[in-house]
């Protein structure tokens, strides 16, 4: 408990340090830090619409973050969430516009295909990782590029909405994710994200399977010795991670855009990965890191309108926060020797 308290207060100090550095930068570009931070706060939580907007921004980061957590738990570094998100988004849209189905079933079918698409996209890297120990970081990074280009190809060459922009035809309302408020686009995706995060935490903590997977991630030889099928669980975990990544894309298309747009959501995969890493791989903690990123992002949208500061300033501050928080994590494990730790276990 005491440890945790120290850790949390450490994080807060780290954020404060980053904000201070941010304030200096803001001063340097000739704006008032107070005004900028107040605007940020107003933009993130100013009224119910702003709060809803923040939650809307949080949703994809959260789901991608859970995807990353699932992989990290099993010792798999899924850097390909971005690509899975794009394919999942496209797959959901495709079901949404091409196959008229009854309400409810339509949405579930679309989400299901998004999940399948995400999992399928990571299946080959996962297979090679499990079977031949092929580094999954490399293969998933590379497959991101292919996924984004591929969805662009599908969208523009095969399924383009006639006369329109580079986007698919709109999906049918039967496939929409239900909204939560009528004043916001916030939708059931948030609930899906929260359920996933808490569900993942429970599964990892309270099931035999989750225990096995956790052991595969933290001590693979031990797990193997204990009778856990390390290769199969590794494959499964990466597949699940990809599935959640695909779901993130499906949620975006069905919940917000109601069509697939070429290049619609760059960077969510990486945001999610960072959120998960800052949360130390804990899905529940990822809820908070994702919310933090979502608030920063939504706040920064108002910032650009209400002050002279540009959104890039926020990008810079966000990076500073990540950097100082990441260093903070380390203060806890300062030790005598640098040698003992394996630096990276890819």
């Amino acid at each position: 408990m005491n440890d945790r308290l120290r850790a949390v207060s450490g994080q807060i100090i780290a954020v404060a340090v980053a904000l201070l550095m941010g304030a200096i930068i803001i001063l340097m570009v000739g704006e008032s830090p107070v005004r900028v931070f107040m605007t940020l706060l107003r933009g993130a939580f100013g009224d119910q619409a702003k709060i809803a907007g923040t939650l809307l921004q949080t949703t994809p980061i959260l789901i991608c973050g859970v995807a990353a957590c699932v992989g990290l738990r099993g010792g798999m570094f899924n850097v390909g969430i971005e690509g899975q998100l794009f394919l999942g988004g496209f797959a959901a849209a495709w079901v949404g516009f091409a196959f008229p189905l009854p309400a409810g079933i339509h949405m579930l079918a679309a989400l299901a295909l998004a999940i399948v698409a995400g999992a399928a996209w990571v299946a080959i890297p996962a297979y090679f990782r499990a079977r031949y120990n092929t580094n999954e970081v490399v293969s998933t990074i590379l497959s991101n590029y292919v996924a984004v280009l591929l969805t662009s190809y599908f969208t523009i060459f095969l399924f383009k909405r006639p006369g329109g922009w580079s986007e698919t035809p709109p999906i049918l309302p039967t496939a929409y994710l239900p909204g939560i408020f009528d004043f916001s686009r916030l939708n059931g995706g948030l609930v899906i994200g929260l359920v996933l995060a808490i569900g993942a935490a429970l599964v990892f903590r309270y099931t035999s399977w989750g225990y096995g997977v956790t052991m595969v991630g933290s001590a693979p030889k031990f797990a193997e010795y204990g009778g856990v099928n390390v290769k199969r669980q590794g494959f499964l975990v990466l597949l699940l991670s990809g599935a959640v990544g695909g779901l993130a894309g499906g949620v975006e298309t069905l919940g917000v855009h109601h069509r697939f747009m070429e290049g619609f959501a760059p960077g969510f995969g990486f945001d999610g990965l960072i959120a998960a890493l800052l949360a130390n791989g804990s899905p529940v903690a990822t809820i908070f890191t994702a919310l933090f990123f979502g608030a920063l992002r939504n706040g920064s949208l108002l910032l650009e309108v209400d002050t002279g500061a540009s959104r890039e300033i926020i990008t810079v501050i966000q990076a500073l926060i990540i950097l100082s928080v990441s260093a903070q994590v380390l203060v806890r494990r300062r030790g005598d020797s640098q040698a003992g730790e394996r630096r990276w276990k890819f």
Partner: protein
Amino acid sequence: QDKVSVAAISGYFAQGFGVSIVNGLNKAKDEFGIDLKLVDTGNRALDYEEQFENLAKAKQYDLIFVMGWELVDSLQKVSKAYPDQRFVFIDGVLDNPNMIYANFAEEQGSFVAGALAGMIEAKGSEFPKIGDGMAIGFVGGRDIPVIRNFLGGYEQGAKYAAPDVKVNSVFAGTFDDPAKGSELAQALYGQGADIVYNVAGPTGEGVMQASAAVDKYSIGVDIDMCGTAPGNVLASMLKRGDIAVYTLIKDEVEGRKVAAGTRTFDLASGGVEVKVCDDIAPTIPADVTAKLDEIKKAILDGKIEIAKAK
């Protein structure tokens, strides 16, 4: 209401056409002392609607200029939520009767550019730096409808003026990678093209620089690019976003409230034009110049139908 206040929102202020719009806005600001707000949307579709909300909610802007087709969906929603807010959609026409449209006929300008390139290529080695490949090239940014529209006009123009000339077209897949633009252009030059038209934003800058590197020709787009590689830039196909926003703001400032409806910026109105670079102009053979004028006239008279890309 004393002072006119306008906002502009787009993800493309950094690229050719967007730059010309920013130029126009700044000119209006300098001349009329208006309030000006630029909002960069970035490239995440999730952000757009919130950004429109933030702009429209204040109700302080007389006009909001919107550029980029990916914003259309959010724009439609917000314009429904704020029916009193006047939006100017640049570079397209939608089905919304409350909106102001500034529509550009880039295919017309590209047609002329294509005709010019075709005729010069057809001259072969008579013309300096031209080989006998009988091919011209096109480098696009991403393979999206607007860019296809440029390509379509260019191809049709080249075929119209010089039926034997082939048009090789390639896309970089990105507007942000000039190095790739340079490689693409060099590949085209290597395959016999002597003139390459770029519609690729910063990626296209790489095309212009490649034309200087291999000493062939390039054609610029959106803004006057003759200075980027003097002697190697044949012409620039200007898409005068600056004129469009400037005239609209001018109307507004002078009390003629801009009303909903479509304004077309084409060859006829000077909204698009092909400017042959000053250092090249004297070397253009007279028959080419004459034929080019003829073509322009035919377009103005509606004698030439240019198919638009879907």
